[in-house]
């Protein structure tokens, strides 16, 4: 009787043991998505790509894949993100700066075997322009794109655009697809690029790429890449230690210190071009008062914020552009000082305590952590911070409606200073949600935008940046480190400051 009643339990236990025991040490790693093969890199990314049309998607998860499938005319170098030849071998600019002539690389083929020529470039660029796709704004100064012969593309401009290379090559959103690709293929799920890997398949489990043997830069030595989506960092790091995967970028900052001493994991890190900032609403008193904003900028200790939000895996910065970029400006006028902050508030003539709603989003959990530190730093100077955590959709709605006192977010993927400043700080800028308007800054940014001489251009941007920092249009906080982890022995991979993921030269251990 007794044994009988316990039977189901025993059976269940036995089942569990056999199910577990079957694997032993040899956990099956090939599995998921039918990738398999010993020479396939299995990479864990934290999200599933939404789609694969490079001109339509805005998801980072999609670009992690597309980086390896498509090419652009020019490409940022891994070292300092200056623009290097890719599908375009060389280029010249007319004296008036209004016409750029690109000479295309010879002997480039698409994955379907067709030959790459200037018609593909014209088609790709015109598709973005004519259909008003996400990156159409990058062609704001482009009046025409023509192909006088198969190896030549001419881009005609309405005004000189010294940062044209960055506009057309900084990421794979500007990818060159084959002529008429959008009609011949379903670009949302299929691809025909010129990159080192071909898109083989993609489902809810994994995206699988296979090596493109005829790649113009030489075929990769691995047979392919399998991207698996592992959202939970603990699972990703466990899978890396287990050998289920060989690479992941799902490394939360709080784990970095632990992993540094871990022999089973190799860690790569570089200060990225991303920057986190806080911004205050010029339409909401007293934040329209420059002294109030400066008081807040003085009360905040960026080192503490960085420590709390990133566990130190970031560089505090009072400007936007990270050290290491040719456009870096060494400028840090604020020293954390609560007495000085109180004085500034007094000078401004505002009655403390002030209440400030600080809008953050769980889409970027570190903004929540940073906001808590900022709240504790502002409280002693007489500013009560009310942290408002929203989901990203609501956050964006409130931002665009101007329904906020202050918010925190980051900008990613910027390389040229025009990207760092124009959209955010021109009084007509599309992302100037704070409502900043300084005619001097407008003038400097407008002049810099057409200045052909690099040194003169940098000088103009430096002046503008100083005003932006002094006026606290943005209260810049830090540049986070891009941290990635891989299996010891994996070579040919480099962590990039623009967070692009390039597996072309990887060799597995």
């Amino acid at each position, binding site marked *: 009787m007794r044994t009988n009643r316990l039977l189901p339990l025993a059976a269940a236990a036995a089942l569990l043991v056999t199910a577990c025991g*079957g694997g032993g040490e040899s956990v099956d790693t090939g599995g998921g998505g039918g990738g398999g093969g010993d020479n396939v890199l299995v990479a864990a990314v934290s999200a599933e790509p939404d789609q694969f049309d490079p001109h339509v998607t805005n998801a980072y998860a999609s670009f992690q894949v597309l980086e390896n499938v498509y090419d652009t005319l020019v490409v940022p170098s891994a070292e300092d993100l200056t623009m290097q030849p890719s599908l375009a071998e060389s280029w010249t600019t007319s004296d008036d700066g209004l016409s750029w002539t690109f000479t295309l690389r010879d002997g480039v083929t698409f994955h379907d075997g067709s030959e790459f020529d200037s018609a593909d470039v014209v088609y790709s660029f015109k598709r973005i322009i004519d259909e008003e796709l996400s990156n159409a*704004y990058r062609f704001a100064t482009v009046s025409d794109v023509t192909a006088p012969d198969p190896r030549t593309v001419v881009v005609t401009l309405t005004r000189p655009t010294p940062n044209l290379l960055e506009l057309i090559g900084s990421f794979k959103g500007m990818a060159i697809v084959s002529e008429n690709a959008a009609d011949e293929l379903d670009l949302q799920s299929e691809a025909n690029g010129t990159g080192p890997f071909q898109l083989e398949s993609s489902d809810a489990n994994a995206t699988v790429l296979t090596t493109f043997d005829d790649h113009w830069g030489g075929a990769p030595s691995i047979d392919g890449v399998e991207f698996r*989506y592992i959202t939970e960092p603990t*699972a990703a790091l466990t899978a890396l230690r287990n050998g289920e995967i060989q690479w992941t970028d799902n490394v939360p900052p709080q784990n970095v210190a632990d992993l540094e001493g871990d022999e089973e994991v190799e860690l790569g890190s570089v200060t990225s071009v991303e920057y986190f900032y806080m911004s205050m609403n010029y339409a909401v008193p007293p934040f329209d008062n420059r002294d109030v904003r400066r008081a807040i900028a003085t009360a905040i200790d960026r080192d503490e914020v960085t420590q709390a939000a990133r566990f130190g895996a970031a560089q505090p910065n009072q400007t936007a552009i990270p050290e290491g970029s040719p456009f870096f400006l060494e400028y840090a006028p604020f020293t954390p000082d609560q007495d000085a902050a109180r004085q500034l508030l007094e000078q401004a003539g505002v009655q403390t305590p002030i209440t400030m709603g600080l809008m953050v989003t769980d889409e970027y959990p570190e903004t929540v952590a940073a906001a808590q530190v900022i709240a504790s730093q502002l409280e002693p100077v007489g500013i009560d911070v009310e942290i408002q955590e929203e989901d*990203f959709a609501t956050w964006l709605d409130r931002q665009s409606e101007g329904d906020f006192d202050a918010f925190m977010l980051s900008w990613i993927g910027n390389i040229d200073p025009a990207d760092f400043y124009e959209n955010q700080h021109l009084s007509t800028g599309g992302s100037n949600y704070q409502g900043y308007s300084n005619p001097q800054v407008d003038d400097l940014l407008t002049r810099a935008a057409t200045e052909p001489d690099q040194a003169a251009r940098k000088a103009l941007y430096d002046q503008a940046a100083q005003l932006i920092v002094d006026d606290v249009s943005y209260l810049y906080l830090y540049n986070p480190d891009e941290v990635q982890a891989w299996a010891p022995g994996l070579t040919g991979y480099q962590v990039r400051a623009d967070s692009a993921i390039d597996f072309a030269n990887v060799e597995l251990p």
Partner: protein
Amino acid sequence: MSVLVFSLIHLVRGDPIRLALGTRFSQETYDALRERSGLDLPLVQQYFTWAGRALTGDLGVSFRSGDTVTSLIGERLPATLTLALAALVVALVIALPLGMLSALHPRSLIDRVATVVSQFGISVPDFWLSIMLILVFAGLLGWLPSGGYVPLTEDPLGWLQRLVLPAVATGVVSGSVITRFVRSSMLEALGQDHVRTAQAKGVPTRQVLTWHVLRNALLPLVTVTGVQLAYLLSGVVVVEIVFSWPGLGQLAYQAVRDRDFPVLQGAVLLFALVFLVINLLVDLLYSRIDPRIARR
């Protein structure tokens, strides 16, 4: 009900177009995408277009991926079914013996252990349990993969290996809920007059338990199991995310975040349908278990 689903979803704050475009775009781009998605039409018109198509089985197209909603759901349905059924098996394997034993020996040691275990199972956060399972069985012991999913047809062993941990993580919670129902309904059945009569007549204990007690205790058990199954079938978001299990819960969760209305509407409609069907099945099962219900 479809009206309710539709209006609730559209009442939520957040603009799917702005989300899809990120933070930098021109007004022209915004307008163009809004028109392509059909979001520029009046809401009432959007509803009737959607409802009309839904009747023919066409649930529309995802704003984000461009895939049809039916294909997105179809792709994730097998994973969800697998996990739901496996979790239910785990739940019953825990709940039936534990619940019965504690009902047969009320206030005994085993009863107290069962109470503690089920209390633990109900209150433990599933993300914590899932992460612990990964750290122990995938990390420390290296017995099982840390997550993922392979179809049964492709790799039966890999399928089973990847199924165990998420099934346990979800099954423990459901099992704990069911344990309590098994215990209380068994206790109730045990106290009924006909059971005492049967025992007095000298019917063997085993027969009393199976015929007189279990059968009576089955009704509430079937109800709660049905509810648990419906809950499992509508996707267990947290466990799916932690174990990278490509189920409907993840799909619906992502659709909420992206404000991908067509996908969300399709998923919610499916969940509602699952509840209806399971309730119907439970009701039909009642009359099989208790003929009195059928006669009424």
